[in-house]
């Protein structure tokens, strides 16, 4: 099959960018979207043009490194699928496909389709962990975890940190990512001691980098792991509870 690509090219954050049009002919519909970009890059090098930079690694939808806007959709047209798992058979022969980097103020552009997502690491550093230093853990079966709790915690923990939720959000909000991380830990018995400080501090850092959630629900549709926006409601509930608790404590102090 043959496709026409309109790819965003930009050599650096301070350089002007723009769309370049490339014809990619004689590709197989069995190849993945990223393999199609590999072919484009091989051909560009032969023509003496620098290849398109894009992040990718595991190519099995788990590392979260890849992700581009394809025809305006984060990770492209297939639900619950990361860019690396999207195959060319999803496109029509002769199609024109627009490829852009994640567009969000919280993810500054690095080059071409590569963006800087370190703001996600800052959110985790703010409290996305359970404090248990190596060696200090009790026997694993001392703390029973109800199966339902473990299952829902897992649904949240399945987040791969790709940033599609932010890219899809009209506000550039990271609420689905942050909520998934908070809920994973807040749902487990082991996560209770730090539940309230974790919630407030992770939400605080999230707000430093990202926009506000206004419940569009685009994030859930774009998420390659189909993480539910119910977790955003859980995070909001915990945030409010935490604020009320803290307010009461402050009132008692004074």
């Amino acid at each position, binding site marked *: 099959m043959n496709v026409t690509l309109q790819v965003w090219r930009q*050599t650096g954050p301070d350089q002007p960018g723009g769309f370049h049009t490339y014809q990619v002919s004689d*590709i*197989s519909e069995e*190849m*993945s979207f*990223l*393999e199609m970009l*590999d072919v484009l890059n*091989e051909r560009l*090098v*032969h023509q003496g043009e*620098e*290849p398109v*930079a894009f*992040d*990718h*690694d*595991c*190519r*099995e*939808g*788990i*590392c*979260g*490194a890849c992700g581009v806007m394809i025809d305006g959709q984060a990770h492209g047209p*297939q639900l619950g*699928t990361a860019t690396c*798992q999207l*195959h060319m058979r999803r496109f029509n022969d002769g199609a024109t496909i627009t490829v852009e980097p994640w567009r969000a103020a919280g993810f500054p552009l*690095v080059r071409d389709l590569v963006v800087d997502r*370190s703001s*996600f*690491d800052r959110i*985790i*550093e*703010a409290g*996305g*962990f*359970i404090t*248990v230093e*190596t*060696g200090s*853990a009790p*026997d*694993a*079966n001392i*703390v*029973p*975890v*109800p*199966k339902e709790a*473990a299952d829902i915690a*897992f649904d949240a*923990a*399945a987040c791969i*940190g790709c940033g599609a939720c932010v890219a899809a959000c009209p506000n550039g909000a990271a609420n689905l990512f942050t909520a998934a991380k908070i809920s*994973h830990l807040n749902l*487990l018995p*082991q*996560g209770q001691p730090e539940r309230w400080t974790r919630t407030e501090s992770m939400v605080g850092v999230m707000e430093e980098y990202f926009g506000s959630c206004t419940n569009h629900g685009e994030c859930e549709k774009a998420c390659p792991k189909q993480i539910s926006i119910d977790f955003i409601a859980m995070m909001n509930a915990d945030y409010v509870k935490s604020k009320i608790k803290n307010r009461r404590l402050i009132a008692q102090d004074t």
Partner: protein
Amino acid sequence: MALQLDAGIPEGPIDEKWDSHKFSVKLVNPANKRKFKIIIVGSGLAGASAAASLAELGYDIEVFTFHDSPRRAHSIAAQGGINAAKNYKNDGDSVFRLFYDTVKGGDYRSREANVYRLAHESLNIIDQTAAQGVPYAREYGGALDNRSFGGAQVSRTFYARGQTGQQLLLGAYQAMARQVALGNVKLHIRTEMLDLVVKEGRAVGIVTRDLITGAVKSHSAHAVVLATGGYSNVFFLSTNAMATNASAIWRAHRKGAGFANPCFTQIHPTCIPASDEFQSKLTLMSESLRNDGRIWVPTNPDERRPANEVPPEDRDYFLERMYPTFGNLVPRDVASRAVKRIVDQGNGVGPLKNGVYLDFEDAIARQGRQTIQERYDNLFEMYQRITDEDPYVVPMRIYPAPHYTMGGLWVDYNLMTTVPGLYALGEANFSDHGANRLGASALMQGLADGYFVVPSTIGDYLTAFLNQSPVATDDAVFKEAESAVTERVDRFLSARGTRTVDWFHKELGKIMLEHCGMSRSEPGLLKALSEIPALYEEFKTDVKVLGTGGSLNQSLERAGRVEDFFELAQAMCLDALHREESCGGHFREEYRTDGGEALRRDDEFAHVAVWEWTGDPSKPELNLEQLDFENVALTTRSYK
């Protein structure tokens, strides 16, 4: 100069060695720990767990990863689970049994004392990770669930759906993130180690390249820990992530670290076959599928009917035919070779005739679609996404693919390499899996090394350097290493040849898969040893890398990694040639039993082959570490 291969195995009974060793090593006083700087390269299970644990102890830690976030490391892709001898299932498991199974599974080419310690620490790993909030599978009463994995006779595998590696990595990453926030770990992302710096025989730091700005920089420390994973990508097509590479350990090897058993590679039998020449990597389908799937090919190589219309009498269930006792559950290496043989005979299936069927028809008929769905739905879905075929209706097609490398840097009992001050953890070292790794043991080893072993052993080396600053980065050794790195980068950019880096990588991969893959022979290896240097020479002059060294340049990054693969590939072939026996994942066609099975030669090859860099990649020097088996009797594996 020959390498000093004193493994430093403690005296005493096997179950007391680790405790007595921890008592005998020198400790660093808590108040002095902050005076020691340790560099950790790699942020996968081994690297992140070591960084978190060492920082908790008080050491001054710097972590380097070439990814955009430490959470991307390839440990994240492990599906199946993690073994631990908890005996929660009351089925007769014990530390000794896990130890025994691992030594036997490794075909008696691993070091007993290290493996026993691994089995022992497996208990602590489960406690530690459950406390971190890893959402392991649970029973309805809230206790942890276990399953049997990879043909083990006991249920000792802990798992988190099909994403155990992801969840364990996130646990270690989060523990490390806490230390980053506390200021105990300094994190460098998109920063690749391009050389190890050695002064007066000791590891004193590394030279890195910032992948965004291209800046080449030196970092010094009292000790350097490499946790940079394995080298299956030497085959180009493997289940490893695209960027996984051997450069950190290979650069360390060139600076004096012995490289042990490079030919011990594991080929995983159940991967999705390549669909076309553009295939960039292969996707693993969990080994657990073989519990219910039956493997077969049509008896007629020219069969044209769709799989479900081929009647039973025209099907060859070849694993069940060849190995009636274990059938479809024979170990990875045995299954892989059988599949290769069938496909080489021309009996393969699929458009390229490069796979065999893994069929769930009988399992669905017997247990119902619901049961199969509960067990494997995420895998079936992944398969369908990639191939556009529904495995509930059409049998899966599978073919073996390179997956894991048991070989790696030689380490002693403290996990220190032959370069004092340089440590290797996880898949980057050689010590625990012998010639074949059992399923659900890679995660266990990465975490044992990082959480529990290196935090207890590294102090023994460091104490001698109390109140000494690390070597300054303006020292001549750093300056020399920096200019070597810069020259190398310039060399790639100025070659201005006609072929891309990936083209060379693919060609190298073809040679390696053909001659140093699932089965090896003297003529094949000799052929590879003449072809690889020739291709390497071509690479030096004909590689085409565009752009500059001063910005993000992904072809330039790959050029260095592929060049290191060219040298490593030669060591792998030389090692395979040296090892005139068949054991584990290493199968030499000349050494097989009358029945065609692997023939181990314990009298001559119960040793670790440790290669020493001489400056010429085609002529490394061989050193041997003899392996003693005091607790496990050497037997021949039989699955007939």
